[in-house]
């Protein structure tokens, strides 16, 4: 087993991996950019080294600097987390060349899965079901028209090197195809330096369901159940759950077996995720494989009782999987809310800044993987994910009720978060009924925001308004010093600079 591991990441996932290492008696090495000196992952690690300025391209994406820290600190392995270098085959190769174990799949498997067309060709050979279409880039608009005629409109044009919706076009008819293909190709060229575009049948209102797999380096591969990830905004997942409300044990077994087949076809090792699109008739199609630990891995951990990060480390150190497929059991239900620094009142625009108050939930069935703390300045340079709140229960309804209770306890001030969004989702009747697809969240948001939780009538609202009024007064009476906008840490909080009635109130109190 490794004695020391470097974590090439930041935020909640770096903290998550550091915790696993501490549990396993492994020393940890953190790396940090200039703006992350006071971040939680640095505080929690055994050793920490600076790797450069705030922009990720000058710090968390710098392979040379990270490998240099690994060498200096004597780390034997690197856990990449998710994002940053986690799916970069060149980095995995550079680790191997430097004699440091990369905790993840081999560069070969990553390359194979990195291109959507090469992944499709490989899967076609392995007999994996995927959305009807071509497995190679289109050579001409005529070819595109012929294929579209055969598989039927609407069709989707997709960049082979794509991701995040770039180089993607939905085409409803033959008339639109030629210009859509041209614009998809030029966008793909601009975004990825590769104009290869292929064609697929468009699945209307699909669900996005993924299957966790785990493979050791001795040829054993298992599946660990699915995650329902249909609740997305701008191609970014917001809430995930396990199991999916529509997957029964038979469908789970079939999806799991296909996922294992996908992993084996790519000679895959370590933790990975096979993503599927599921249509309204519950047919599932291979979409792509994510060659890393997923953000939403905790829901699988809670429903299987396994620790995926422990297992990743054990596999990377050469151990065999300590259990068989027949021993994997799915129990209970888990739902994850991704707490982002985003402003719900301003179209979910990112909201970095200083966290002035933080009240965090705990109690039965609640897991919180967080990278934030009170007094921390959320940097503006990275992904806005602050924390993950996961509710677990014996069934879906209990998990929902526990999450609602925990969200009621959760309070973050100083920056804006999307906590209120989850209150809306969890009480929504379509969500409660498990009627989800990738368009669900846009439809919910289009219904408009409601200030008060449903069930709160006019009179209740009026009572709460009275309470808020009394509360504002009592804060001024009992805590005049803080009301003056003074910051204990002596930092320049925004409140201190703004013209504030509280400040004036504080002054008038001082004169008494």
């Amino acid at each position: 087993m490794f004695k020391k591991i470097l974590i090439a990441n930041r935020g909640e996932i770096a903290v998550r991996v550091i915790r696993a290492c501490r549990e396993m008696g492994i020393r940890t090495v953190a790396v940090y950019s200039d703006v992350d000196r006071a971040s939680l992952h640095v505080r929690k690690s055994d050793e920490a080294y600076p790797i450069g300025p705030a922009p990720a391209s000058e710090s968390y994406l710098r392979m040379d600097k990270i490998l240099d820290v690994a060498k200096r600190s004597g780390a034997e392995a690197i856990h990449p987390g998710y994002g940053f270098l986690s799916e970069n085959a060149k980095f995995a190769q550079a680790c191997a060349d430097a004699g440091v174990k990369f905790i993840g799949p081999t560069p070969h498997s990553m390359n194979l899965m990195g291109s959507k067309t090469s992944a499709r060709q490989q899967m076609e050979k392995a007999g994996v079901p995927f959305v009807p279409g071509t497995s190679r880039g289109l050579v001409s608009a005529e070819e595109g028209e012929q294929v579209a005629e055969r598989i039927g409109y609407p069709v989707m044009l997709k960049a082979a090197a794509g991701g995040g919706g770039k180089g993607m076009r939905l085409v409803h008819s033959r008339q639109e195809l030629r210009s859509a293909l041209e614009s998809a190709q030029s966008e793909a060229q601009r975004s990825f330096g590769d104009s290869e575009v292929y064609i697929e049948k468009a699945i209307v209102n699909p669900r996005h369901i993924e299957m966790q797999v785990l493979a050791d380096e001795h040829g054993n591969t298992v599946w660990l159940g699915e995650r329902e990830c249909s609740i997305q905004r701008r191609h970014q997942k917001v809430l995930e759950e396990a199991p999916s409300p529509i997957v029964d044990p038979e469908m789970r077994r079939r999806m799991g077996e296909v996922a294992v087949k996908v992993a084996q076809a790519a000679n895959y090792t370590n933790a990975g995720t096979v993503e599927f699109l599921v249509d309204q008739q519950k047919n599932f199609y291979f979409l792509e494989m994510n060659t890393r630990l997923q953000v939403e891995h905790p829901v699988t951990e809670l429903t299987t009782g396994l620790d995926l990060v422990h297992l990743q480390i054990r596999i990377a150190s050469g151990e065999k999987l300590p259990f068989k497929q027949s021993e994997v059991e799915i129990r209970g239900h888990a739902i994850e809310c991704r707490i982002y620094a985003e402003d719900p009142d301003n179209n979910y625009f990112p909201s970095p800044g200083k966290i002035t108050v933080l009240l965090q939930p705990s109690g039965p069935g609640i897991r919180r993987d967080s990278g934030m703390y009170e007094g921390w300045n959320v940097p503006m340079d990275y992904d806005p994910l602050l924390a993950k709140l996961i509710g677990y229960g014996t069934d879906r309804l209990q998990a929902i009720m526990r999450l609602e209770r925990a969200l009621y306890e959760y309070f973050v001030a100083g920056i804006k978060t999307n906590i209120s969004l989850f209150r809306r989702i969890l009480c929504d009747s379509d969500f409660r009924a498990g009627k989800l697809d990738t368009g669900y969240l846009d439809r919910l948001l289009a219904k408009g925001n409601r200030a008060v939780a449903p069930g709160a009538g006019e009179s209740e609202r009026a009572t709460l308004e009275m309470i808020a009024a009394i509360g504002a007064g009592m804060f001024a009476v009992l805590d005049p010093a803080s009301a003056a906008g003074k910051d204990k840490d002596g930092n320049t909080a925004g409140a201190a600079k703004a013209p504030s009635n509280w400040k004036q109130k504080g002054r008038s109190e001082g004169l008494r």
Partner: protein
Amino acid sequence: MVYEVIVGGKAHRLEVERAAGGWECRLDGQPVHIDAVIPRRDVLSLLVDGHAYEIKREQTATDLHMWVGSTRFAVELRDPRSLRSRQHAAGGEKGPRKILAPLPGRVVRLLVAEGSEIEAGQGIVVVEAMKMQNEIKSPKKGIVKQISATPGAAVNPGDVLAIVE
């Protein structure tokens, strides 16, 4: 102590006096006996007639909110005795208005020039944070008197970006 409290656009008169076992309040003339404790900064535990409320205070560069449970209320608090706050209260629509940066970020570009006439809700500058661009809008119709934001410069919450009169 007497306050004028504006909650969700409605003004209330709040009188607070210390009393046996707590505080005696009058809210718009209605007597309410309460007990109030601040167990930690920005958190208030309020007991009204046996009902318990946890109220959280959120102050930002631009506004003040009270959270009762998970319901948020925009609040303004004024001391009617204070001349300054009365002047401030009157300055809503008339006179110059400072446009403040609501969040830390970087100024990407200016959307209007000094001296131009703008409508309420019109964008003035674009500030980028976490790889997203955000238009900072004018709260009122008027003339852009001054632009202090410079493209490329970093801004902190509460920094003056422009003044509209």
